[in-house]
């Protein structure tokens, strides 16, 4: 097929799915935090609140777009644009799966395959600081300026341990290309332990993984590092002067950054799209089992429902889950769906950890945050890199 037409189709699919994932990530976050706090979360708009993101989008779009008179107009318009652009660009180089053949067309599952993929991700996360800094400055408001400067200083301080944590598995894997990194984590030790980076000899990269996740929390301004933008600190920080769609852009940028950090952690440390145990021991049946169990749960709760409404909606969900389980059994689509399932499952687990931490931990004070970066994370990342390099040099 024509290269440009194929690229456009792939881009359309990825952008469509990614936008829906961003919208529903907010629904998942609200539901999970609600259940952690022993309440229910949104449940009125649509069954179990599933149409809540649609309601939120309609609300944000139809709100009045205020342009305060005291702001610097050029940068006020530029800042959310820059934030969203750099947050969404990183998704273009992430590989979702291996090379597949769909209707006679061979293509990679992923939009672009850069030889310097890891450096590009580091560069884009460095450029993402501009959105926050410009938003804080353009608002011409001392709280926004303080919030913007604190947030940007936090982001650049944590870029350093993040880069050092990324370099350590690269010493073992020997390439900067994201697809080659995942291909290097193929295979199993002794037949059943997966050869992911966190299990890889000569030095299992478990410390790098933890360091990368902590730095990822700080880079995306999530709890416990979200002092610069929390609602009850500094009057909501750098986005205090922003109204409807521009405010929505900052939040979309934050969720997109979260997904990017989770995807990069999956690719570098958790083996990308490779399954947990080999195909011959039946790892192709895991998605079938998960969806079938969800369907059984739905039917069970439909039998004695908590609300009369559920007598109708829960069986529908049960049938949908059974359909999904059946889809994973068709051998034609299995090579496409199985790697995608494992990739999404791993990214989903890390996103769940992000949301779980938000529901559980209190936030750091700003000086504690910066001290943690420079006196703890940076030396630990250096020592980790040194040990990895030493072991790689001694036992090639």
């Amino acid at each position: 097929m024509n290269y440009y037409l194929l690229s456009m189709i792939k881009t359309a699919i990825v952008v469509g799915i990614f936008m829906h994932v961003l919208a529903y990530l907010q629904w998942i976050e609200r539901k999970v935090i609600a259940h952690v706090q022993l309440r229910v979360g949104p449940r009125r708009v649509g069954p179990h609140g599933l149409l809540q993101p649609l309601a939120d989008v309609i609300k944000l779009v139809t709100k009045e777009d205020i342009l305060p008179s005291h702001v610097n107009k050029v940068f006020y318009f530029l800042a959310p644009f820059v934030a969203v652009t750099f947050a969404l660009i990183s998704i273009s180089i992430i590989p979702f799966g291996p090379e597949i053949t769909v209707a006679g067309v061979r293509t990679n599952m992923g939009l672009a395959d850069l030889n310097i993929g890891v450096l590009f991700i580091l560069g884009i996360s460095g450029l993402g600081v501009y959105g926050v800094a410009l938003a804080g400055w353009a608002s011409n408001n001392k709280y926004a300026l303080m919030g913007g400067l604190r947030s940007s200083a936090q982001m650049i301080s944590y870029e350093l341990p993040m880069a050092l944590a990324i370099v350590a598995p690269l010493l073992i894997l020997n390439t900067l290309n994201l697809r080659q990194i995942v291909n290097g984590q193929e295979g199993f030790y002794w037949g059943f332990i997966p050869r992911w980076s966190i299990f890889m000899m000569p030095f299992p990269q478990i410390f790098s993984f933890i360091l990368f996740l902590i730095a990822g929390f700080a880079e995306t301004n999530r709890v416990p590092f979200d002092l610069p933008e929390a609602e009850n600190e500094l009057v909501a920080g750098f986005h205090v002067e922003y109204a409807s769609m521009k405010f929505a852009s900052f939040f979309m940028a934050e969720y997109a950054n979260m997904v990017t950090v989770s995807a990069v952690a999956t690719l570098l440390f958790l083996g990308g799209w490779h399954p947990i145990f080999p195909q011959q021991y039946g790892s192709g049946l895991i998605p079938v089992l998960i969806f079938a169990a969800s369907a059984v749960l739905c039917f069970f709760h439909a039998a004695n429902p908590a609300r009369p409404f559920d007598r109708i909606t829960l069986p529908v969900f049960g049938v949908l889950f059974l359909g999904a389980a059946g889809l994973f059994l068709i051998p034609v689509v299995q090579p496409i769906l199985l790697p995608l399932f494992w990739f999404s499952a791993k990214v989903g687990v890390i996103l769940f950890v992000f949301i779980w931490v938000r529901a559980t931990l209190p936030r750091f004070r700003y000086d504690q945050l910066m001290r943690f970066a420079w006196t703890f994370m940076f030396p630990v990342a250096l020592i980790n890199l040194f040990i990895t390099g030493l072991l790689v040099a001694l036992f090639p």
Partner: protein
Amino acid sequence: MDTILFLIFAAIAVICGINLVVQTHPISSALSLVGVMGALAALYLLLGGEFIAAAQLVVYAGAIMVLFVFVIMLLNAGTEKRLNVRPLGKYLGAPLLLVFFGMMAYLIQKVMPPSSPVVFGAFQGGTAAEIGKSLFTVYLLPFEVTSVLILIAILGAIVLARKEVD
């Protein structure tokens, strides 16, 4: 295709460069410089320097210019006052500059020996592996010396920015 890409990014670089010189507020100049660096990163990719393009984005546009933007925001530098330029300079300056650029372009074209045109993908020696090999074998001494240089710069910046304890 290579020509169109070169012309687009060269135009962006020159326009952002002119913007840097012409704008009165330092922060507009800083963002124009980020634009120049982005356009130059794309040109490095066309010339086969993929590692240098990524290093330009990570180091220059992502760290050094953020430092500039921070300092401008912290010092709250206002716009510059207009300089009183004599009419001779105002009306002769830009045309003379264009004539100078034209002369420079002609001279460079004439003096440069004939070489193959710049095609994307013709130079494969700019990968991270090649640069690493060269950096750690042939250029090892400058590499170690730059690490000392960075240490001196860090010490200097910390000493200069420290509050005096009376």
